[in-house]
């Protein structure tokens, strides 16, 4: 992206009808390390690539529990992400205090989106520089949403954001039709595999990725390194099995395929959001 005349203020439109500051904020998300989310009929899994700024430092925390039934993964300015997660936790607790029941995740996502939108329409503010993948439950089941710095939000069957997320997205696009019927373990394996794709050359270990799960009657929990390592190892063995299955064409699960919800903004989003203003116009 090149520097433009109309990109100094977030409240200045460009002649092409774009808000460049908002787009730059979304660039910040794309530069952050990857976050991946996918869901089935009963569970939602979030996975992140954890980058350490140096060999001496610990990894950045990118998975946050918001409430027992909601959690987020973030990509971008994690400081902004912390502020948003504090807001989300506060909203959940307030709702619980008044109604003694969990805040439906869809409603929380809209509140966060409205909060982000405010920052795109005040000259003394700047947009949040973090993209969130929100995993949660409500009465209609498990859901996965993405929150953008632009104030947009959409629901997904599976999605990935951040740097090198296209590799993960390609894998998810290949496999997402099977996700609805997956068990929790299968879903986690898919998520870990997607992280592996994003890491490309680097060796996948419990040190450089994080996974969290939330499900019906199962509170949101970030997997501990030991469990995560066992999933990573099972990937290696599972991978050989998968290859032989594909060769002999007996992968029953994929042929028996069932739906993926077919309304509006659901379903896999293809890479369009990366370098055009379509995100803002929807």
């Amino acid at each position, binding site marked *: 992206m090149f520097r433009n005349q109309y990109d100094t203020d977030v409240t200045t439109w460009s002649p092409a009808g774009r808000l460049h500051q908002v787009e730059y904020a979304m660039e910040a998300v794309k530069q952050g390390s990857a976050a991946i989310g996918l869901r089935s009929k009963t569970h939602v899994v979030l996975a992140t690539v954890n980058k350490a700024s140096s060999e001496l430092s610990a990894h950045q925390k990118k998975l946050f529990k918001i409430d027992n039934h909601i959690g987020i993964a973030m990509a971008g300015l994690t400081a902004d992400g912390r502020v948003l997660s504090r807001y989300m936790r506060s909203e959940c607790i307030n709702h619980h*205090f008044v109604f*003694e*029941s969990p805040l439906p995740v869809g409603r929380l996502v809209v509140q966060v989106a409205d909060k982000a939108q405010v920052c795109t329409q005040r000259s003394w503010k700047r947009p949040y520089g973090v993209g969130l993948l929100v995993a949660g439950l*409500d*009465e*209609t089941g498990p859901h996965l949403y993405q929150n953008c710095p632009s104030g947009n939000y959409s629901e997904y069957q599976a999605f990935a954001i951040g740097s090198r997320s296209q590799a993960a997205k390609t894998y998810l696009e290949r496999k997402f039709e099977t996700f609805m019927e997956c068990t929790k373990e299968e879903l986690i394996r898919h998520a870990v595999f997607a992280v592996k794709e994003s890491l490309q050359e680097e060796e996948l270990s419990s040190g450089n990725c994080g996974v969290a799960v939330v499900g019906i009657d199962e509170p949101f929990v970030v997997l501990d390194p030991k469990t995560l390592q066992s999933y990573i190892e099972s990937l290696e063995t599972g991978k050989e099995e998968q290859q032989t299955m594909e060769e002999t064409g007996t992968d029953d699960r994929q042929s028996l395929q069932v739906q993926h919800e077919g309304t509006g903004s659901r379903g896999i989003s293809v890479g369009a959001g990366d370098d055009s203003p379509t995100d803002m116009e929807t």
Partner: protein
Amino acid sequence: MGSVVRCDRYPYVTGSSVLGIKYKDGILLASDTAGCYGSTVRYKSVERLKRIGDNTILGASGEISDFQAITNLLDELITEDWMWDDGNKLGPFEIHNYLNRVMYNRRNKFDPLWNSLVLGGIKKGKKYLGMVSMIGVHFQDNHVATGFGNHLARPIFRDEWKEDMTLEEGVKLLEKCLLVLFYRDRSAINKFQMANVTEGGITITEPFALKVNWELEAFRNPTKGAEGSW
């Protein structure tokens, strides 16, 4: 605003008891339709049972104007919930908790809503029946009553309520208690309403009267056994 002015020291137009029971398919609420102005039974067609959304019913005793304010609040809440249009809906338990917060907060400001509320509903097969008082005491039970109903109706409930009663049995039990209340509660009249909530919806009956019998033995010599009475 309203923090120093204590405008609600005593209620003016009041409703008497509300009764509620769980039965096999849902919840039944009953009350009479009297609004008393002190010791005068001034208004005889006050509806004290209201529907909230499409899975909850609310009954109130106490100050009628406060009940109307509460109904307005709840209607706004339900409308806002409906506007989300996202497949999620506030259930009776959530409304109970919301009401409790409202009542308790008013009590803390020394400006209570002078009501005892009975809330009943059913959501996804789960039945709920509870009570919230004007000081914010709240609980759930299989049968509840407010005001005089606590003293006259609940003992009957404790003896005769059982799990999974049919609609007929439930109505009969409530009618028995309503009759006792009419005989013994001076602010009750012989004009009642019943509200029924099931998975299929809410019905509130038109006002009806019960057959009374003042020739009963107990009324023949009412002060017999009560030393010093007249």
